[in-house]
């Protein structure tokens, strides 16, 4: 069993209960009237007044055509981008008044990213990549944390390539490294943008299984952005974005 040193959880089963007590509502992400307009030679509105909440420890998917605005939505939820209007609360904290450094700390501690193109640091080994968010926060890595990272890597099946440079791994291995990295800080939220996008279907299925398993065991909230309906159908809640608006919401767990 993994042990966590931040205050989100001490054990997996208590995780969700503890957080519920800690906050007045049960939403880990809450968007209110979020709009995004890109100003260029032509003004393009990508998102229109999105109201959206995600409950703690749930497993969600956001689907939509390319250009529908789903990636923009994820970037805004991940605090990488700011909305033109509207507000977001992450883990009960409003983000609109935070400066860049406060947002950086929030991302580091609360959000784990899994991108379509893996985005590992090619200069570092798989294990070092996994530990990078922790290194960013603490400046050094003690052996306890190293063993936690190794455990996480074992969990996603990366024991054999732990010390490979990021570039010396297959696409599936890189994506699993990215998953382990997203989890190292035991974030409340894992945002995955097309995590299986450029993987073959068997590997994609495998990656999906790993994320599902982690959601069950560690209780992190997963939000997976995908255009793969096959993957989306396996999640508890599906939100479809079309032309910058929520077109459909399907909550299968009720």
């Amino acid at each position: 069993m993994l042990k966590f040193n931040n205050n989100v959880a001490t054990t997996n089963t208590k995780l969700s209960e503890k957080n519920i007590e800690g906050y007045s509502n049960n939403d880990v992400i809450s968007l209110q009237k979020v709009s995004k307009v890109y100003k260029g030679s032509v003004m393009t509105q990508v998102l229109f007044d999105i109201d959206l909440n995600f409950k703690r420890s749930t497993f969600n998917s956001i689907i939509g055509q390319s250009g529908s605005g789903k990636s923009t939505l994820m970037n805004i939820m991940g605090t990488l981008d700011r909305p033109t209007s509207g507000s977001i609360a992450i883990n009960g904290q409003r983000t609109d008044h935070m400066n860049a450094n406060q947002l950086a700390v929030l991302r580091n501690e609360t959000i784990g990213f899994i991108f379509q193109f893996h985005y590992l640091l090619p200069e570092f080994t798989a294990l070092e990549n996994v530990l990078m968010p922790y290194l960013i926060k603490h400046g050094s890595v003690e052996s306890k944390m190293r063993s936690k990272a190794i455990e996480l890597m074992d969990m996603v099946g990366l024991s054999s390539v732990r010390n490979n440079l990021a570039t010396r791994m297959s696409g599936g291995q890189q994506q699993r490294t990215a998953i382990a990295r997203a989890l190292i800080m035991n974030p409340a939220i894992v945002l995955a943008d097309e995590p299986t996008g450029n993987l073959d279907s068997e590997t994609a299925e495998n990656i999906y299984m790993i994320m599902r398993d982690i959601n069950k065991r560690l209780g992190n909230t997963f939000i997976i952005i995908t255009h793969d309906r096959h993957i989306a159908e396996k999640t508890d809640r599906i939100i479809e974005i079309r032309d910058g608006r929520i077109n459909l919401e399907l909550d299968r767990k009720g």
Partner: protein
Amino acid sequence: MRVAFKIALRFLSSNKAQTIMIALGIAIGISVQFFIGSLISGLQRSLISVTIGNAAQITIVSNSDDRLINNYERLLNAASQIEPRLTAVSPVMDQPGLVIVDERSNSILVRGFDFNRAEKIYEFRERLVEGVLPKGSSQALIGIDLAEELNLELNDTIEVTVLGDIKDTFRISGIFDLEVQNINKTWFLIDLRAAQDLFMLENVVTSIEMQVDQDVAFEADIIADSLQPILLDPDLELVNWKEQNASLLSGLNGQSISSLMIQFFVVISVVLGIASVLAISVLQKSKQIGILKAMGIKSSHSRYIFLFQGLILGFIGGILGIAFGLGLAYSFTVFARQPDGSPVVELFIDPDFLILSFALAVVSSTVAALIPAGKSARLDPIEVIRNA
């Protein structure tokens, strides 16, 4: 900070070829800067030492009608007391004279020295071609050119005529070579007391010659000013070598400025080189910076990644540069030699200048990293994520 340093180190070590190239670039720049600086300062030192090393740098002379300085013992003591930077204070009695040998007459300058004191300025012992310093009142030192011209040898006796008709004989106790033909031809050196007796001038001298510490040779004018209060007599005057060698000084000054200009532009080109390479490196690493920012690295730390790269490159480049510079300097003194085997220029390696050059490498490399570091700090992760 620590994470920034670790990432900086990894960025540099993961692209060794590029890192070595930049470090070599810095090293070559710094070695040239160090070499030129050392060369020019060595050149100036030897010029200065040739010009004023074995000469009076500050002299007290009298502007009275008889050109004599009374009460010189008081001045000797006062000068040494008031100014610790003086390394020598020597009273001199100078008067013209004539030497006639085999009907050939040569005009000479009879110089009466207190040899114990004058030795500190002229280092006669080292300049003696043969013989010893005069002992007693009837011995004299002559220059090598005078000896040649008059066919004189050691222990020969010569007659000197002064003040028109006073004659005295001296035995040549030694022959010196001060490497200036005019001096070697005219100076006729005897003991101060012997000179005073010869010219029948008791307890007076014609000048007091002083030398200052080599390190403050360029402050001779300031030191001369500080001696002004001890003169007391309005007829007495202090002259220093800087007044007497104004054209040499302006030459040296011009040389210093051109040397500094060369060093400055070498360092500027090093800075521009590093800045441009690091600027490209920010572009190369923009994806990594974007990822790190998405993972929560602060902008200030992403700035440090590039500042540390500059610092590390400067450190490596500085050490290599100093090593190259010393190598250059050594090979210059070994290979660039005059026919007699002595180096064309005696290089002067100043430890302070060595440290300065190293510091210059580190500081200029870090400064060069400022713009790339700012770029890295401003980089918006969303640009990287969006433009996948």
